[in-house]
């Protein structure tokens, strides 16, 4: 273990944030290390919850999929950085008939945007935009591909918790075990978390019905199991994914009732877990489906802290992409 000198600095170089697969451990840590100062801004008891980091800049939130949590989080992040914000809720079905994705962005960019936050149901949409357009593109979730800011805020939340409980401001994710449970196949959150957490030194086990857990995930560096007990035994974090109720009737699992029987986290199934295991969820939760109400309201969960941290992490990402500051090691 080497001790960094105060002179050592890292420089952010990327124009866009498309996925955590692309980022190095160093880059992931730069983002996590930049976030606390912005968390402090949001937590100001008195005074203005704002910094002039992006004053006069335009951030466009361009959402092709309905979203409340992520959209408001980005919007608030931009506002707390003093940027102007514009939200565009687009409809995929009409966009398929009319203007192409690139043409729409050319039109948005004609208004001199700095950052475009995009959510799209088609995997790869942010990436093809980033390659052609000059705006900073932030992927707010593309199909089943990635949701990088979710992965970042999750890693940040775990790290924050570890540092607090161990009373060690330098503690990281090395050696931690994270169990991600639910519909892995369709989850961009699972993918971003696998990339992010494993690069930061944690190990990840993915758990869900075989129909929603393609075997190829084991080649991404995660363990794969359909046995809930096996997944959560020894885990430091249990990360639950929202089970999409509309997947019923597509022959992926027989019923919510049976899903609950096999995969719900409740006080009973938690007996197999560590006593101090952390419960996380990207929201919105389905009470009494993927987790029971007693767990959802219980002392082990940090679900609302994830939401709080989400704003700070997104502020950090926007700051890094636009201002490319030097970040001390």
């Amino acid at each position, binding site marked *: 273990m080497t001790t960094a000198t105060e002179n050592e600095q890292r420089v952010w170089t990327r124009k866009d944030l498309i996925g955590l697969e692309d980022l190095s451990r160093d880059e992931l840590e730069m983002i996590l290390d930049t976030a606390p100062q912005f968390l402090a801004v949001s937590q100001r008891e008195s005074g203005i919850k704002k910094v002039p980091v992006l004053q006069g800049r335009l951030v466009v939130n361009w959402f092709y999929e309905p979203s409340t949590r992520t959209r408001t989080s980005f919007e608030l992040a931009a506002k707390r950085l003093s940027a102007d914000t514009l939200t565009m809720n687009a409809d995929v079905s009409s966009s398929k008939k009319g203007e192409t*994705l690139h043409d729409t962005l050319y039109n948005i960019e004609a208004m001199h945007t700095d950052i475009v936050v995009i959510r799209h149901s088609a995997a790869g949409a942010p990436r093809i935009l980033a390659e052609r357009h000059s705006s900073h593109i932030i992927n707010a979730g593309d199909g089943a591909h990635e949701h990088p800011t979710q992965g970042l805020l999750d890693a940040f939340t775990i790290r924050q918790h570890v540092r607090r409980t161990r009373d060690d401001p330098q503690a990281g994710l090395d050696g931690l075990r994270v169990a991600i449970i639910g519909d892995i196949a369709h989850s961009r959150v699972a993918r971003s978390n696998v990339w992010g957490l494993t690069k930061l030194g944690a190990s990840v086990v993915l758990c869900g019905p075989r129909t929603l857990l393609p075997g190829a995930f084991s080649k991404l560096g995660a363990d794969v199991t359909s046995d809930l007990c096996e997944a959560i035994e020894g885990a430091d974090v249990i990360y639950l994914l929202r089970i999409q109720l509309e997947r019923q009737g597509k022959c992926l699992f027989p019923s919510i009732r049976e899903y609950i029987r096999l995969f719900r986290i409740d006080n009973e199934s938690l007996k197999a877990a560590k006593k101090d295991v952390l419960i996380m969820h990207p929201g919105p939760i389905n009470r009494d489906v993927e987790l029971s109400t007693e767990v959802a309201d219980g002392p082990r969960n940090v679900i609302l802290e994830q939401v709080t941290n989400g704003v700070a992490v997104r502020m950090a990402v926007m700051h890094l992409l636009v201002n490319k500051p030097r970040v001390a090691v």
Partner: protein
Amino acid sequence: MTLVIKNGDVIDPASKTSMPLDILIEGEHIARIGKDLSGDELFDASGCVVCPGLVDIHVHFREPGFESKETIASGSRAAARGGFTSVVTMPNTQPPIDNGGMVEFVNRRARETACIKIWPAAAATKGRAGAEMTEMAELKAVGAVAVTDDGDDIASSRVLRRCLEYADMCGLTYLGHCEDASLVEGGAMNAGLNSTKLGLSGMPKAMEEIAVDRLMRLAEMTKSKVHVCHVSSAGSVEIVRRAKARGIRVTCETAPHYWTLTDDAVTTFNTNAKMNPPLREEEDVAAIKTGIKDGTIDCIATDHAPHTPTEKDVEFDYAPFGIVGLETSLGLVITELVEPGILTLERAVEMMTSAPARILELPAGKLEEGKPADIAIFDPKAEYTVDPAAFLSRSRNTPFAGRRLRGLVKATLCDGRFVYRAP
């Protein structure tokens, strides 16, 4: 007026000819093939291979209905630039080629606008809907050379069985687009590690292999002649190999992208690497090459599937399947099959001329005195860079842009006329 092609290496697989010879052309026909011939005009083919005009039994020329992608005129010019003088056009146009009148339309447009020979394949079912078979005897009578619902498989095994029996009675080969579409919802690329990483809906190899296997069993049961289109997976190659060993009347084709690319080409969400069947994995590329080498795969086809730049310049999920292939096929055969020693030059020419012609009994793919002078002249050593902007096709959707290839077409003659000459 006579023309003599001198100093070339003549390769005519049908007559097992491979030697320096001259070819004398009188009018539309080959007058003589021999040594030291002379004529009014001379084409110096020094350093070049002179072979039968190439034959591609799987192209989409999109006319009628999708003329912004390609027309019979533009497709034929692209074919000529690639060395082809005979192509079999697929019937998935709008409206589809599913009755005698539509076949006659294609034949008329070919007569009026094409610079090479167009052999139409007709639909196997009305409207390509997979329910009722087409009037195959009439289709055959007006010039259809095969039947297929290419672009889609025939989902019902009952309908497929009857189509095979009836087509065989009419002397038409059934071209099988083998895909069990019911296996997945959606489907944008090969199912595997890359689709998992990219979050794109995967199309498992089993989707193709189940359908190839079904076709083999129905061909065996009905004793019909079938041809499997665009074989892409190791499993399909193996199924066809076993079927041939059992004596089933089956032939098959593959396309250049299946021996040159894997689904790694999709990782940038490049829609010009999106086609159906999709690009597979290393083991499949290896099996395709083995199948080409051992003769399990009978011929090379391109599955030339033009789409406009606008149609392809979209989110990966929304892009149509297909890539153009006529203007890169020969180069990919020479560079990736002949030069690495998988095929001899003679065998490569055979898989692009007499072999596909034989499958559909086309009067093409060979050099014979007294027969039409359909000839390709190419320099197997000449290197060039694939430049989509130079394509004569109306479309540009190729994953091979910028690739260095050897095997450059110098000239193509159809019925004794130059239909393409390299600049």
